[in-house]
C-alpha cells in the first residue's frame, strides 16, 4: 500500500471516468463509489469524498448515469446510481483517451510497454 506521502489527489477530469468505471459492475450509492475507487487503487487515489457528488449530479444531468432512491446494505435510504447506455459510450471514449494519454506519457518517460 502506498504511504500517505505518495497518495495522489485525483487528477482533474478523471473522476468522471473512475466513477463510470466503478458503476460498470452495477448500481452503487455515492459512499460505495468513493470506497470502491479507494479500494481498487489500494488507497493510492485520495478522493475528497464530497467532490464526488457534484460529479455524480453532473453526469446524472447529462444522462450518463441514472439515479434512484433505495435501501442500502445497512437498511438505510440511499441514492443509487447506475450506468446508462450513454454512460457506457462515454466510459469507452474516456478510457480510450486515457490510454492514449498514458501511452504518450510512457513514450516520453521511456516506460512504454512494447506492443504486440
Amino acid at each position: 500500500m502506498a504511504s500517505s506521502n505518495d497518495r495522489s489527489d485525483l487528477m482533474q477530469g478523471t473522476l468522471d471516468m473512475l466513477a463510470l468505471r466503478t458503476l460498470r459492475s452495477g448500481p452503487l450509492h455515492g459512499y460505495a463509489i468513493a470506497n470502491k475507487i479507494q479500494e481498487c487503487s489500494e488507497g493510492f487515489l485520495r478522493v475528497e469524498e464530497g467532490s464526488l457528488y457534484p460529479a455524480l449530479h453532473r453526469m446524472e444531468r447529462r444522462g450518463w448515469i441514472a439515479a434512484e432512491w433505495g435501501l442500502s446494505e445497512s437498511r438505510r435510504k440511499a441514492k443509487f446510481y447506475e450506468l446508462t447506455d450513454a454512460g457506457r459510450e462515454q466510459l469507452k471514449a474516456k478510457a480510450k483517451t486515457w490510454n492514449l494519454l498514458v501511452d504518450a506519457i510512457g513514450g516520453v518517460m521511456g516506460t512504454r510497454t512494447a506492443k504486440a
Partner: protein
Amino acid sequence: MSGLDSIAAQRRVADPRSIREIDEEIQEELNFHLEMRTHDNLRLGMTQVEARAAAAERFGDFVRIRKTCRAMLVGERIMLQRLQTGLIVILLLAVVAIGYQMFSAQRANQVALAEVSAQLARLNSTPAEAAAPSRGVAPPAWEAERPRVVETFPADGATDVDPATSEIRVTFDKEMADRNWSWVQSSPASFPKSAGDVHYLADMKTCVMPVELEPGTKYVIWFNRAQYLNFKDPEGRPAEPHLLTFTTRK
C-alpha cells in the same frame, strides 16, 4: 433499477421535483455519506467525536459541496425563473406604459371633443347667442344699442300669404348702413327665389328683396345668422338675428 435509463431521460426533459425537494434530497444524500463514514470510523476504534471529525475532514467543505450540487441540479431552473420574473416585470411595465399612453390619448381626445362640441354648440346656438362675439364672455357695451327687427312683410308666422307677393321687406328700429345685409337661408328649398336687387328704402330702415313666390310653400329666412351679420347700423353694430317664417296659400 431497470427503469433508471428512462428516469434519467425524463428528468433531462422536465424534472418534476420542486427546488425544495431537490434541496432535501441533496442534504439527505450528503448526510448519508457522512454518517456511513462516521460509522466505519467507529468500527475502526475511534470515539464518536473523532469519528465524526475524521468523516467531516475526509468529506471536505460540506457547505460548498452542497451549494455546488444545488447549482448543478437546479441552477438552470433558478436562472429560468429569474428570467421569467424579469420578463413578467418587463411585460407589466409595458402594459402600464401602454395603458398610460392610451389614458393620455383618451384624455387628449376628450379635450378635443369638448372643444369641438363647444364650437358646434356655438354654431347651433340661438340667434342671440350666435351673435355674441364669444361664448362665456360678457356682452359688449353696444349690445343694448344694436339694431332690432320691428316689422316684416309678410308678417312672421303668416300662413295665408298671397303667392303673387313680389317683395319681402324687413324693417329695423333704426337706420342701417346702406348696401349691407345678410338674407340667410335655412335651406335652398325654403328660401324665396330672387327677382331683383336687394335695396334699402329711403328711410334706410327698411330693406327690400324682390322675389317670386310659389303657392303652398313655407319660407324660412334669417336676417343675420351665425357668421353672416351684415345687417348693421352705420356704426357697425350687427342687428340682432331674426327669423321670419311664412307660408303662401295654395
